[in-house]
């Protein structure tokens, strides 16, 4: 993985010192909260319902064991012994004291981490496929360009006061695990007919109050030209994005209002101006330097089939179930990608205790070259596990309570923090996620239902990505009472779609029954297990669900 050189280290150290000074000025009363606010927001520090929240960047979701141990230390020393992994591959600490924040940032800097640009109207943490560099279906490793973008966007002088926040996601595989079509800029790496690497550039996707699937403005952008082109997009957005209404300020609104063709013309004209020779040359040299850090680890030459592994699969049903759901194919023969679900029955999606973090850090050292990934689905990944070690890994995870075999199943729920933490929320998300996972606790039943993604947001800002769930839940407040709307048919992958509203909302004590009713409609109507929930929805449409969900109530 990427390691800081002297420059990166100094950059973060100076930034940490700068913020430490600002915090001290605030604590001494030299800065008012109003003056302090923009400064703390540039350093990932939010003021929530009950306390400050510090969001730490995990660039493109890659962590070392050492870093994860440090996060555990921070959780123990400065928080309540846990952290929360987010849908943007970051981690949040919910209970830090302002006076401790400089010490936390110093502890982060020790392990080459920071909280820069995890909030504010700037370019946020660049995200990618949690299987980047190891996925069997990958065309190109997106991590070097993610790191290039991370550096380039850090404290960018021109793009730190944008109309609104800005999110970039990159994928290098045809099956999109990074949801690039619902980002401000989505980049899909592929190769042209000459075999040269480049990007499909997608703009204007996003969720929030106005969900939109992004539109392609360049089918193939040579990889070398990435920065001048992204600069052109950012400049057009910075100049012409709306600033009169914060809910209409994202780039998707600009693209929608002027049209994708007009937007694309502005970007092409902007990128055609000026001489980008030096920029291209410097970036190419940087990418070459960065690529060396992402050289594959020392994989052993292993056979494709491990007889002991086959026997373990045959003998141990629980292990076989975990492998079936949580293990993905690796590009190197004899290796596997192991997912660690942070969605135990009745748990809080994405939460991990300090002990769990240390356990995972240790297992990564032992079985995965000391590397961990964070998935935007709020799970962890050990990317490089020898297939023959899977059984031992599973046993260790099982002992630690981390072997929930539910990846992509109905209890693998994405949820925002909701009203339990967030000052914007209009309803609770976590208790709904917990109740659904309890209702579907029976693994055999979950397995029968198959691939079904449930995402829950506690307000229309949609941090829980409910729009792109197969089954989305949006918590609202109606006359002081929580009301949960269901959307169906959304998807965040290469066939991205925005879910459709099925009808009026359900009360907090009805929503789990409603989810179950949706599942029953699917089970009753599907042509067999091969027809997944989303396939079924696309075949029968929203009307079918509407009738089944609301007809009984009318009959009563």
């Amino acid at each position, binding site marked *: 993985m990427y390691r800081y050189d002297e*420059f990166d280290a100094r*950059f973060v150290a100076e930034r940490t010192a700068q913020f430490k000074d600002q915090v001290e000025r605030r604590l001494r009363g030299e800065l008012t909260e109003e003056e302090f606010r*923009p400064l703390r927001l540039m350093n990932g520090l939010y003021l929530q319902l009950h306390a400050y929240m510090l969001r730490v960047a995990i660039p493109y979701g890659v962590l070392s064991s050492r870093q994860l141990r440090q996060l555990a230390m921070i959780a123990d020393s400065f928080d309540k012994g846990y952290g929360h992994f987010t849908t943007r591959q970051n981690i949040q600490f919910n209970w830090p004291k302002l006076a401790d924040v400089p010490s936390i940032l110093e502890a982060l800097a020790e392990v080459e981490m920071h909280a820069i640009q995890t909030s504010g*109207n700037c370019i946020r943490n660049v995200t990618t496929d949690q299987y980047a560099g190891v996925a069997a279906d990958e065309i190109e490793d997106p991590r070097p360009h993610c790191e290039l973008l991370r550096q380039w966007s850090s404290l960018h002088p021109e793009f730190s*006061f944008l109309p609104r926040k800005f999110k970039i996601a990159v994928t290098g595989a045809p099956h999109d695990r990074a949801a690039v079509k619902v980002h401000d800029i989505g980049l899909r790496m592929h190769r042209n007919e000459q075999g040269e690497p480049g990007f499909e550039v997608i703009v204007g996707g996003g969720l929030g109050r106005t969900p939109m699937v992004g539109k392609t403005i360049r089918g193939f952008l040579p990889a070398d030209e990435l920065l001048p082109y992204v600069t052109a997009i950012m400049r057009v957005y910075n*100049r012409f994005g709306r*600033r009169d209404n914060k809910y209409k300020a994202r780039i998707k609104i600009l693209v929608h209002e002027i049209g994708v063709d007009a937007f694309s013309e502005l970007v092409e004209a902007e990128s055609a101006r000026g001489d980008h020779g*030096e*920029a291209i040359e410097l970036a190419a040299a940087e990418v070459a330097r960065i690529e060396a850090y992402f050289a594959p680890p020392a994989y052993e030459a292993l056979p494709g089939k491990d007889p002991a592994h086959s026997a373990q699969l045959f003998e141990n049903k629980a292990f076989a179930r975990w492998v079936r759901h949580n293990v993905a194919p690796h590009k190197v023969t004899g290796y596997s990608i192991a997912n660690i679900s942070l969605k135990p029955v009745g748990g809080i999606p994405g939460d991990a205790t300090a002990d769990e973090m240390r356990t995972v850090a240790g297992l990564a050292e032992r079985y995965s070259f000391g590397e961990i990934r964070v998935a935007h689905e709020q799970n962890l990944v050990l990317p490089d596990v020898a297939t023959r070690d899977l059984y031992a890994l599973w046993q260790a995870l099982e002992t630690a309570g981390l072997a929930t075999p539910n990846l992509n199943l109905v209890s693998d729920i994405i949820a925002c923090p909701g009203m339990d933490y967030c000052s914007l929320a209009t309803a609770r998300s976590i208790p709904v996620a917990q109740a659904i996972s309890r209702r579907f606790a029976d693994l055999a039943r979950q397995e029968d239902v198959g691939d079904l993604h449930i995402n829950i947001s506690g307000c229309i800002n949609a941090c829980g990505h409910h729009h792109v769930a197969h089954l989305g839940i949006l918590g609202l407040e109606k006359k002081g009472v929580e009301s949960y709307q269901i959307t169906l048919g959304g998807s965040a992958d290469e066939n991205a779609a925005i879910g459709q509203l099925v009808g009026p909302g359900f009360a907090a004590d009805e929503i789990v029954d409603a989810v179950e009713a949706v599942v029953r409609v699917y089970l009753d109507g599907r042509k067999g297990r091969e027809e997944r929930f989303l396939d079924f929805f696309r075949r029968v449409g929203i009307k079918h669900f509407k009738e089944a969900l609301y007809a009984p109530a009318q009959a009563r």
Partner: protein
Amino acid sequence: MPLLKHGEWILDTWRFYPDDQPIPSAKPKIVTVARLKGDDGEFLFHCDCQLGVRLESHEKIEDLEPWLERLQLVALVFPKFADGRAFSSAAMLREQYGFAGEIRAVGNVLVDQYPFMRRVGFDAFEVEQGRALDSWKKARIGIGLAYQYDDRSPDGPAAVWRARRGNRPLTLAAE
């Protein structure tokens, strides 16, 4: 209003004339874009005086194109802290139009944005009275390193990517 230029507080010889104020013929003057394009345009273009224009954040830099060779100063307005449009205007003035005159930040000009402003090409800063003027001099560099290669401040932070290539030694401006 205190004016910070080249790291020093100096006496401002320029004056802004709103559209309803008559303009004197000889003195250095800053006017609105509307005035440049209106009836006074002809006079202003040919007058023997230093001329500057004040561009509001919603006004496009492209509209100044025919005037840029005549102008000695462009004042870019920050109506509020969060409105970052002037950053792009300054960058475009320097990089696309090769404008070598003064680019002045006016309006809600805050010390925390000072290092960023310098790096996109601002070289003069109108600071409201009452703001701690010492902190401005202190904040000149901000962080001593920058990843962006297109820095426009003569003594700004060292560009990391160039330093890595050894194209420019990593010497930071003393502060």
